[in-house]
């Protein structure tokens, strides 16, 4: 039965249902239960944002708190995956990947290739991405491009509750290492989600809005901004096609190219910093594969080349806005 729940609840439900279905699915992270060894309540936190609350009560030793030690526990999760477990490890903020990146990009990502095909590393690393809560420079980045660059990793970035649940279930059932990016500003976003378990395949972008004039391609929290921009532009008689990439690696370029071949105009919106980002990647691929269809230059709307500022006025300027997207679309029409 479909009902309205939040992005955070959808993720919790995906974990809950998969842990029930398969005992090899183990969940771990800092404060994932919260309170281990402490004198007060069990399940005190359920993760820093409460996403994993309630799982301990239902699943006991299938979920574990980890020490503040990403290299060790992310590496352990990876090692356990290589031995046939199906761990879902949380790297609390994607910004922390610096302390454990080797385990992710040199170990997990490369086992299958280096070991001539014999290894399988079915690990999911859940991590919070993005800005919008004044968490400042070291807790607000959108580091998705660093992961998409690495062969052997898959990168998933849902924009709504329905996608979050289906893509997380798919990620857990997938046999490759998956970086599952949860946008921290979307946790309370509500949407219709079925109670039953379901999957969404990777490399399938979602066309949220049909339009013949311009293609807006984006992911994560920027999807909402793109829809807002499209609504503004519709009043001016400009019909935008809005495409939510959903998975960044593998990426559904077929849908993007098909759209650009129809509209002839592309605006890519990316919350990551502008150098070597998803925006540059998509733009380059479109320029290469659909050059003849383009009627105007490709426009990219991204964060600036700065760290994420703390104060609200600056953070709001940092995060790409619907207005900036509207301006970019208008540029392609001049």
């Amino acid at each position, binding site marked *: *039965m*479909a009902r309205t729940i939040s992005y955070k609840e959808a993720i919790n439900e995906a974990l809950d249902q998969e842990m029930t279905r398969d005992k090899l699915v183990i969940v771990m992270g800092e404060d994932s239960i919260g309170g281990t060894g402490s004198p007060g309540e069990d399940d005190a936190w359920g993760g820093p944002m409460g996403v994993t609350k309630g799982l301990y009560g239902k699943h006991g030793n299938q979920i574990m708190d980890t020490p503040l030690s990403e290299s060790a526990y992310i590496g352990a999760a990876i090692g356990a995956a290589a031995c046939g477990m199906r761990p879902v490890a949380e790297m609390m903020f994607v910004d922390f990947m610096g302390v454990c990146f080797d385990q992710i990009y040199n170990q997990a990502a490369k086992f299958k290739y280096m070991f001539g095909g014999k290894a399988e590393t079915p690990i999911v690393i859940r991590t919070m991405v993005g800005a919008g809560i004044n968490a400042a420079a070291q807790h607000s980045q959108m580091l998705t491009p660093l992961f998409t660059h690495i062969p052997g990793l898959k990168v998933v970035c849902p924009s709504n509750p*329905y996608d979050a649940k*289906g893509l997380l279930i798919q990620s857990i059932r997938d046999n490759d290492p998956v970086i599952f990016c949860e946008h921290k500003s979307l946790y309370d976003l509500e949407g219709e989600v*079925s109670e*039953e*378990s*379901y*999957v*969404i*395949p990777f490399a*399938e972008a979602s*066309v949220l809005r*049909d339009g013949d004039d311009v293609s807006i391609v984006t992911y994560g929290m920027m999807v909402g901004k793109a829809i807002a921009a499209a609504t503004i532009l519709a009043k001016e008689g400009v019909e935008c096609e809005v495409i939510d990439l959903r998975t960044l690696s593998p990426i559904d370029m077929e849908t993007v190219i098909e759209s650009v071949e129809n509209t002839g105009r592309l605006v890519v919106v990316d919350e990551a910093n502008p150098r070597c980002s998803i925006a540059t990647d998509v733009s380059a691929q479109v320029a290469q594969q659909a050059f003849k269809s383009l009627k105007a230059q490709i426009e990219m709307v991204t964060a600036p080349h700065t760290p994420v500022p703390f104060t609200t006025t600056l953070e709001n300027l940092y995060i790409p806005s619907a207005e900036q997207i509207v301006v970019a679309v208008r540029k392609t029409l001049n």
Partner: protein
Amino acid sequence: MKQNLIPILMPKWGLTMKEGQVTEWLVKEGSNISMGDEIIEVETDKIAGVVEAVDVGMLRRCIAETGKTYPVKSLLGVLADSSVLDSEIETFIEAYEIPDSEEEADESAQKYLFTEVDGLRARYADRGSGDSIVLLLHGFGGDLDNWLFNLDALADNHRVLALDLPGHGESGKTIPEPSISGLAKFVGKFLEAVGVPSAHIVGHSMGGAIAMQMVTEHPESVDSLGLICSSGLGPEINCDYLQGFVDAQSRRELKPVLQQLFTDESLVNRQLVDDVLKYKRLDGVDDVLRTLSAMLLSDTHTILSDKVIASGKPTLVIWGEQDRIIPVAHARNISASGGPSVEVEIFDSAGHMVQMEKANDVNRRLLNFLG
């Protein structure tokens, strides 16, 4: 004189529709409208459809604007005799209020209901009231929302139940006995579970075969039979469609398959395809569809019509002339051989989903048959 003023309202198609977008007025202000004329094209988040005139009169006012969205039961236009004064029409329009949300709340509380049959969750809708009960059974890969254009119209005069078969809609996603007989048993137990001893059973496609099976196994539970583009009346079935439906993994693959269901392929919009894909991706559905399609494809020679005709049960067969899934010839054959208990009606410019494409015609014909 209000009796001469007929409001044209935004209809409610299905249980979840809250609003619709007016996409085109098909007639101009000042035209004379006859019963059944198509007046306005409306699009909802589920499907596109046409509002038909349910009365005669002159279209005095087009209130709804193209491209705008209006809640269900909004006033979209006014039909009136030419003698009615403009001022009276203005008064009527100003005075018009969308019916109470209290009533709406009641309705939405009854939207979808759940019960358990043989340990399996069964979702159903229950509209209208009365002693005459109609049970609607959808076909392969469908769900009770396939009847979204028919539920309320039939519920005016009858109590209408619409069921999600096992493996479909929001019923449990396993089929204990994947055969027409097994499904007929399930439906029979469902009727018991909701305390209904017998009903007029209207089945679409595979639903029709299930209804016929019920006539042969438990004729006392079937008051009359409605067979809409039904399987089980002849051996031919579009195998490519079945296989395509089962195998399609993406929007691109599924869209052309679904388009075969309609004469007007533009009805297969993005939302419809996405909804079917979401259903196909639920755990358990792939197994169900594969099992059922294998059963349907291997079972093509089980013709149920003879037994039905022999039973003498009053039967109405409805078909779309352009049905690309099960040939309309099956309707013509039973028309020829059916005898006095069987009526047949074939609608032109309609395909396999005739109950959607010619909803008003089908509703009228069914109401007429049901009495």
